[in-house]
């Protein structure tokens, strides 16, 4: 066999192996349902909703933040109560769990581009600064999904810019985007690693079996009530996920609201809250707050991105469940320093809603998130009172 023939066969073998690899990747990803929708479903849906949002005739309000925003702000209630005081607005809940300011920066760029392209402006943007979304711990834990999320949120031009500084990473990112269906190898390794070597469950405090059973029973009952009271909820037009679910207590039966009360009683036991606090400490360094400078920089970018497309931008820290979360004095000092850095970089004064009187300790569903029909109602009321003058 001649040298050329051998290398022709070699190249063919390389090509076939790579094709087979790509086939296997797609096959397993599809089998696992791990497509971009599955990975970052709400975020991609919210991105896809932008062209419709910019065409909305009323003044636009957006609350951009974490899962605490998602849980704590009700756009339907806000719009209804704003209309009652003569402000005609459509508001959107762009609060997403599992993100951090790095990813949010890219998402805010996409939002900003859409508004600029349509020559539209938001009347008011409220941006949540979530201290524990900005910690080193949070950043480290995001590493397995970093490149996958990045390829979903960044443009080719942004990926190219990354590639100019780091060719290896650039090629990797394009490979993930166009050949791996947005799923990086780290994500898969982490997925299989967790499957093979699951982290030890840290349920340090245990509720009694009766409470656990009751929690399950009431949860199932609430699901059944939801199906019963909203028979058309599977219709996508009925409830835009990026609008925060879209249910308000006035629409629910008295019986359902009573079940919610019972449900909160069994889900917010001391043991459940203690476990939740420990998990937040592990996953987000919630009491020590060792900030990741890169994430702070990206948070500053988020504000700047919205400043380009908003008449008013407000930055705030959401209510904190101080009964369970006790930040150390050193953490408070670090937080004050970071807040000052953000204020200096953006020229905005950050509002501190962490300890407002309107929110009481029984309005949380866990150690961080406000509860549905209690916390979200109170906080949305508070926001409307605080920011209604800006809607003129």
């Amino acid at each position: 066999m001649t040298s050329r023939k051998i290398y022709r066969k070699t190249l063919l073998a390389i090509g076939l192996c790579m094709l087979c690899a790509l086939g296997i990747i797609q096959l397993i990803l599809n089998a696992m349902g791990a497509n971009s929708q599955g990975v970052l479903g709400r975020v991609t849906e919210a991105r896809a909703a932008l062209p419709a949002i910019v065409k909305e005739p009323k003044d636009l309000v957006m609350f951009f933040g974490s899962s605490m925003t998602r849980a704590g702000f009700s756009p339907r209630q806000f719009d209804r109560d704003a209309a009652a005081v003569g402000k005609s607005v459509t508001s959107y809940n762009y609060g997403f769990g599992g993100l951090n300011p790095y990813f949010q920066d890219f998402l805010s760029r996409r939002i900003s581009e859409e508004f600029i392209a349509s020559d539209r402006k938001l009347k008011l943007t409220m941006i949540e600064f979530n201290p524990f979304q900005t910690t080193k711990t949070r950043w480290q834990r995001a590493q397995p999904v970093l490149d996958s999320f990045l390829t979903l949120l960044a443009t080719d031009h942004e990926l190219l810019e990354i590639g100019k500084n780091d060719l290896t990473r650039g090629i990797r990112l394009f490979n993930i985007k166009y050949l791996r269906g947005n799923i990086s190898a780290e994500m898969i390794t982490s997925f299989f690693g967790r499957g093979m070597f699951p982290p030890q469950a840290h349920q340090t405090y245990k509720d009694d079996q009766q409470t656990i059973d009751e929690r399950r029973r009431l949860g199932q009952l609430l699901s059944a009530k939801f199906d019963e009271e909203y028979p058309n909820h599977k219709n996508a037009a009925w409830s835009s996920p990026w609008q925060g679910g879209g249910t308000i207590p006035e629409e629910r039966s008295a019986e359902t609201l009573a079940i919610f009360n019972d449900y909160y009683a069994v889900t917010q036991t001391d043991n459940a809250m203690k476990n939740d606090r420990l998990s937040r400490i592990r996953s987000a360094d919630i009491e020590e707050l060792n900030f990741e400078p890169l994430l702070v920089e990206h948070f500053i970018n988020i504000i700047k991105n919205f400043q380009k497309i908003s008449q008013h931008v407000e930055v705030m820290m959401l209510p904190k469940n101080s009964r369970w979360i006790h930040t150390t004095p050193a953490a408070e000092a670090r937080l004050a320093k970071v807040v000052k850095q953000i204020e200096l970089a953006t020229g905005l004064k950050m509002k501190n809603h962490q300890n407002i009187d309107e929110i009481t300790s029984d309005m949380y569903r866990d150690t961080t998130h406000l509860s549905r029909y209690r916390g979200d109602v109170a906080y949305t009321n508070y926001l409307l009172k605080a920011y209604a003058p800006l809607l003129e």
Partner: protein
Amino acid sequence: MIFNTPIFFWFFTIFILFYGFVFLKQKPKVYLILVGSLIFYGAWNYSFIPLLVGSGIADYFIAQAIYNASCQVKKKQWLSLSIILNLGLLAIFKYADFAINSVSALLTTIGYNASLETLGWVLPVGISFYTFQSLSYTIDVYRGDMKPRKGLVEFIAALSFFPQLVAGPILRASHILPQMHAIALPKWQAVKHGFLLITVGLIKKTGADLLAIPAQKAFEAKEAISTLELWTGVLAFAGQIYGDFSGYTDMAIGIALILGFSIPLNFRVPYFAKSPVDFWRRWHISLSSWLRDYLYISLGGNRHNQRTRNVFLTMLLGGLWHGAAWTFVAWGAFHGAIITATHYLANLKIFARFNQSNTLLVGFIKWAITFYLVLIGWVFFAANDLTSALSIIVNLHVLNSSIASGSNAVTIFVITSVWVLLVHVMDFYVIKGADKLESKPWLFWLLMMLGQGICLFIGEPSNEFIYFQF
């Protein structure tokens, strides 16, 4: 650039296009290898290319000077220059900060408040490998084992040959230079074996990445973990470092075979060893044989009843070669001690029958003791510092019933053990029976495609290759 990354895939595909279809003659091929290797190295950090090329150029001319020197004294002076140059590079880039920190700690211990500034320099990747490779050339010429080669480009191309540049195997000049001088046309059988080794390497690396999870749990635990999980972690690290390092060298050998080069085996199922001496005949063979030929023998070898001292010194420096930390020194010393103990016991009449016995039971006992000692050695290698290493070793032997194991601890232990065993069985098969598989083309290529497909699916560099830091 790492073998299991997309950038290497594109680099290698383009390289093959030029290598197989454009540069068909000897000289252009050598130039292509040189340029390709420098691009490969430069993709990590191009500012260290002059260091690599510079040390190669220096050794090339020093070897000529050694050969042409009129007397032994002058030869020795030239060789000393080569040793100072190569080890000097290692000393500056790899060991300077370690030395400064150690002196600083020593001064603090004896009462001086010394806080010495470290250099903080980046360690050039692969420096430990290419300096040893280059040094072997000047030593071989000094000893008269080979004549200096003509052709600077050939020499630099051999030194920087990309498949083995950053993590070995450490090639002897006498092995690689003749191949670079007359690049062989590849044989299809060799190319197929190359594909097999690349696939096996990918499988090992992928497994190593997964084993990193329980290993990290043991070595980076912030809270106490159970004895079973600690043993699992140590076993997982053993599997991780083997899969990681031997996987990389398998891929290196496979890639070299595709290019028409032969690189010797670097691992021969090391965890099947039946004595510490046997382990070092199977583990990182290119380093252990380098240390034997160029350090142990230079120190005097077995002569003058100095074997114990020379073995211990060789292993100590071998440990230090792996990294600038006391944990690596301790690892080397530990292996020096167990090899010395093995030699001592082998000379005792009481063990003579045991040593010579080939029964299954005795073989198993020898293997179990060796594997246990190797695992204990890995604790020094993987621990963050000596205190943690000693604490882990103590905890491995003290059953702490107050700490409960995680819910899947037994399963994880079993999976880890089975994987370490399976990888060795796979290696054994590749060494002994690859021909049978390679003679069935459909099965062979199906397995290659599936193996590479699955590995690229879950693989990629979620963990850097451990040996890159050396």
